């Protein structure tokens, strides 16, 4: 295969494709548009989104442009097990998050963001830390997705990188701006159907065009022993484990996920997340197989850029129609995530910043909508500008995930353990962030006593991750036992060894440090235990509270909503 050139669409063709995609999506949203949108629905629809739309939206949101490129890169780099070490862990994290999601929903059934729940539990400082981490993640996600659009347009057409970035940014903003989250979930369904249908066709098409299973098996000779081993330790330690650690944090710290947790009909949370788990895993691992195919064929990524692998394979083996389908596949995946990020950012600014910290219980729904829409416009502009810096997607993924790792334990503990205090939450996150940076950027030497110090923290972090996962499904006792066993195993096997895997060490350090500080400070605190029932009373809808006059309010609204308005 000629790896030096990719099929090129003409400028009118690529513009027509983009126009058809974004124009069609925009027309779809006209069907649900209201002259006067509801501020609560703008953030979480009606809290009763059905299983089908919910599962489609979860899957489409979780799959972003990086999913394809990074899965293929993983397949190409680590061989047979590579696609699994990218896709399976990402998929399982959707599954592992739902027990905690059900708890969040039980505590605050009418919340719009996880930050509102934390605000009711602890107050502003903890809430704003969570909101800040959410904003950071969503802006980076926007940037990555717009970058992917620019890269795709520039490699498959004469249009420039900048043109692709701007078209994607403006296209996503146009269809999301008016109806917010409602537009996001509706278009997610349409985008996912297109994305899945194309994936179902493209993966076998490339596979058989390259020669099918016979050619793949013959090409296994091109692989190193590590790449040919399904249980490759190289793949586990360099790809699987850091990603596994990072994605747990993604699921907890990502407002796009919590937004859907609060939007889906409470009874459908479990099937929604189970379906999204299988859907995400199947698509991402399947497309990652294209990277493995490229490796067995001895294809070199064009210009040394791994992101060119899938376009190269599709361009080299399939006719132009399939290349157009691939183009739509990537544009669909990046747009569905970008619109979710815009909705997430607007909800954070509306509820966490304006609702809880500026208006302080006097939130005007119309002003909230204005805040939300202005946030979307600003975030799109920031995303487009930042997209100019082409950064390594995989490294960024791990970095942001690890930052969120510092928040995982304090957030979960705050929802189950009455003793956690605001001070413990805030301090533990800040300490963990500092120690994460020290390990990740090797600000302290990772040898001798300091190396051992980080390995001890990382071992605690490993125990915490396993403990939390088991706790989510099997309860407290099983969680403690599993966590303790994992800690002992880590202390035995990781000491003197983990320091060689900086990414993994740093990510685990974030979990370990935040857990240690949070637990010690909470145990030392003399504050009275928290009453979880008060969260439900403090978090409610904004429209209902604002519409009713004070006199009517007392009669017409449940206590929960009234108290939410007062805060």
């Amino acid at each position, binding site marked *: 295969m000629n790896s030096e050139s990719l099929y090129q669409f003409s400028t009118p063709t690529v513009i027509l494709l983009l126009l058809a995609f974004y124009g069609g999506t925009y027309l779809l949203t006209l069907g*649900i548009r209201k002259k006067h949108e509801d501020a609560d629905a703008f953030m979480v*629809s*009606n809290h*009763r*989104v*059905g*299983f*089908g*739309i919910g*599962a*489609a939206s979860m*899957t489409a949101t979780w799959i972003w442009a990086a999913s394809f490129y990074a899965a293929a890169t993983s397949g190409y780099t680590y061989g*047979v097990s590579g696609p699994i070490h990218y896709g399976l862990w990402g998929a399982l994290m959707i599954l592992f998050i739902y027990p905690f999601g059900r708890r969040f929903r039980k505590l605050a059934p009418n919340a719009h963001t996880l930050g509102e729940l934390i605000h009711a539990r602890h107050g502003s400082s903890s809430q704003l830390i969570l909101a800040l981490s959410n904003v950071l993640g969503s802006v980076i996600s926007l940037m990555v997705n717009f970058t992917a659009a620019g890269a795709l347009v520039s490699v498959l057409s004469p249009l420039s990188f900048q043109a692709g970035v701007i078209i994607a940014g403006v296209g996503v903003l146009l269809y999301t701006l008016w109806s917010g989250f*409602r537009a996001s*979930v*509706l278009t997610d*369904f349409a985008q*996912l*159907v297109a994305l*899945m*249908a194309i*994936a*179902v*066709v493209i*993966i*076998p098409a490339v*596979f058989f065009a390259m020669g*099918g*299973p*016979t050619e*793949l*098996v013959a090409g296994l000779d091109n692989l190193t022993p590590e790449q040919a081993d399904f249980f490759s330790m190289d793949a586990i330690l360099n790809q699987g484990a850091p990603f596994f650690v990072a994605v747990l944090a993604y699921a907890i710290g990502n407002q796009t996920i919590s937004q859907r947790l609060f939007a889906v009909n409470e009874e459908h949370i479990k099937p929604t997340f189970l*379906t999204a788990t*299988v*859907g995400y*895993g*199947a*698509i991402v*691992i*399947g497309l990652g*197989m294209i990277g*493995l*195919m490229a490796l067995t064929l001895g294809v070199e990524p064009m210009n040394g850029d791994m992101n060119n692998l899938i376009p190269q394979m599709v361009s080299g083996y399939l006719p132009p129609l399939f290349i157009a389908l691939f183009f739509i596949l990537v544009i669909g995946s990046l747009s569905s995530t970008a619109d979710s990020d815009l909705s997430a950012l607007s909800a954070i600014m509306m509820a966490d910043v304006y609702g809880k910290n500026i208006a302080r219980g006097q939130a005007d729904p119309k002003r909230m909508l204005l805040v939300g829409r202005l946030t979307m416009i600003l975030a799109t502009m920031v995303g487009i500008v930042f997209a100019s810096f082409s950064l390594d997607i995989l490294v960024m993924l791990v970095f942001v995930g690890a930052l969120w790792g510092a928040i995982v334990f304090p957030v979960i503990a705050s929802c189950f353990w009455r003793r956690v205090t605001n001070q413990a939450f805030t301090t533990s996150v800040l300490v963990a962030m500092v120690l994460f940076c020290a390990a990740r950027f090797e600000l302290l030497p990772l040898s001798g006593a300091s190396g051992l110090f980080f390995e001890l923290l990382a071992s605690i972090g490993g125990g915490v991750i396993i403990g939390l996962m088991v706790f989510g499904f099997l309860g407290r006792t099983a969680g403690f036992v599993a966590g303790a066993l994992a800690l002992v195993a880590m202390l035995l096997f990781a000491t003197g060894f983990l320091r060689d895997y900086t990414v993994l060490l740093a990510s685990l350090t974030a979990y370990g440090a935040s857990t240690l500080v949070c637990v010690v400070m909470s145990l030392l605190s003399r504050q009275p235990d928290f009453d979880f029932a008060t969260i439900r009373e403090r978090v409610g809808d904004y429209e209902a509270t604002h519409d009713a006059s004070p006199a009517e309010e007392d009669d017409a609204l449940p206590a929960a909503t009234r108290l939410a308005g007062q805060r």
Partner: protein
Amino acid sequence: MTTLFGFYVLIWPALTLGVLILICRAVLRDRREARREKRELV
């Protein structure tokens, strides 16, 4: 070996198709329910 690798690659698009059908059927059901209860889908 050839069959095993063929299965390893093709199982993922097959699973994707299964989930696609499941989601489409569920959305149609959601739509019917929403109409019956005279509320919007989203």
